[in-house]
């Protein structure tokens, strides 16, 4: 928790700064904005680390709360099972989304795509 927490401070404040504070803030975020970020391996690594560390850190914290408050043993097992299952599913899903992302999907309206898609076709 301590180690992932320290790294997350940097990763999350960087993420918030670029996505919510810089430029037009939340209004700038759309498909093309993310495609532009993920054209740079720097942000692919950043977001993958963010996904894994944040979700594992959060699930581990929730495990502590289950240990503290769920006194019934079978309820405890259900909560922890659900926690583990949702964590694994979201880690796999999120990682696949980042690494199979297509910035210029065929058939999509070009005004929704990043500008570099026009140069490719």
């Amino acid at each position, binding site marked *: 928790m301590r180690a992932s927490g320290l790294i997350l401070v940097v990763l999350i404040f960087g993420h918030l700064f670029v996505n919510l504070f810089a430029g037009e803030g939340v209004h700038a975020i759309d498909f093309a904005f993310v495609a532009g970020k993920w054209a740079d391996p720097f942000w692919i690594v950043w977001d993958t680390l963010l996904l894994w560390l944040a979700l594992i850190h959060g699930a581990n914290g929730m495990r*502590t709360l289950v240990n503290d408050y769920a006194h019934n043993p079978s309820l405890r097992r259900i909560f922890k099972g659900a926690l583990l299952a949702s964590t694994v599913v979201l880690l796999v899903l999120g990682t696949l989304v980042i690494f199979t992302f297509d910035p210029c999907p065929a058939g*999509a309206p070009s005004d*929704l795509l990043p500008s570099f898609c026009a140069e490719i076709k």
Partner: protein
Amino acid sequence: MPDKSAEALAETQPVGKSPRNKLKAPAGTLYRGREGMWSWVLHRITGVAIFFFLLVHILDTSLLRLSPEAYNAVIGAYKTPIMGIGELGLVAAIGYHALNGVRVILVDFWSVGTKHQKLMFWLVIILWFVLLLGFAPRHLMNVFGG
């Protein structure tokens, strides 16, 4: 992991012999009721809130893989005034959790961390306030400024 929660342990503190006796405030070692406890309570509440946002945020980001239209439609919801206020709350929660998390690390690993935990709590509150003073006006102008 102990079976008893912090509250349950705190409840086991001995009370006066008869119920008539005025409850004496236990001095010295009791954790309950001051900066130490409230920093912990806030840390839990903000942690849970951030966790559930994270679940939703991974799912909405996954729409990038479906189609630009689907992603833009859902991310458009984040640009509404109500969600804009929610984002301010999110940043406030993350800011507190991060700053207090650093305080917890210092309490754990810094040789005089425990001694200065109260001072560090108020330092966390001040830094948190400064952080929000920087973020809130700009974000609210983005959200409500059209």
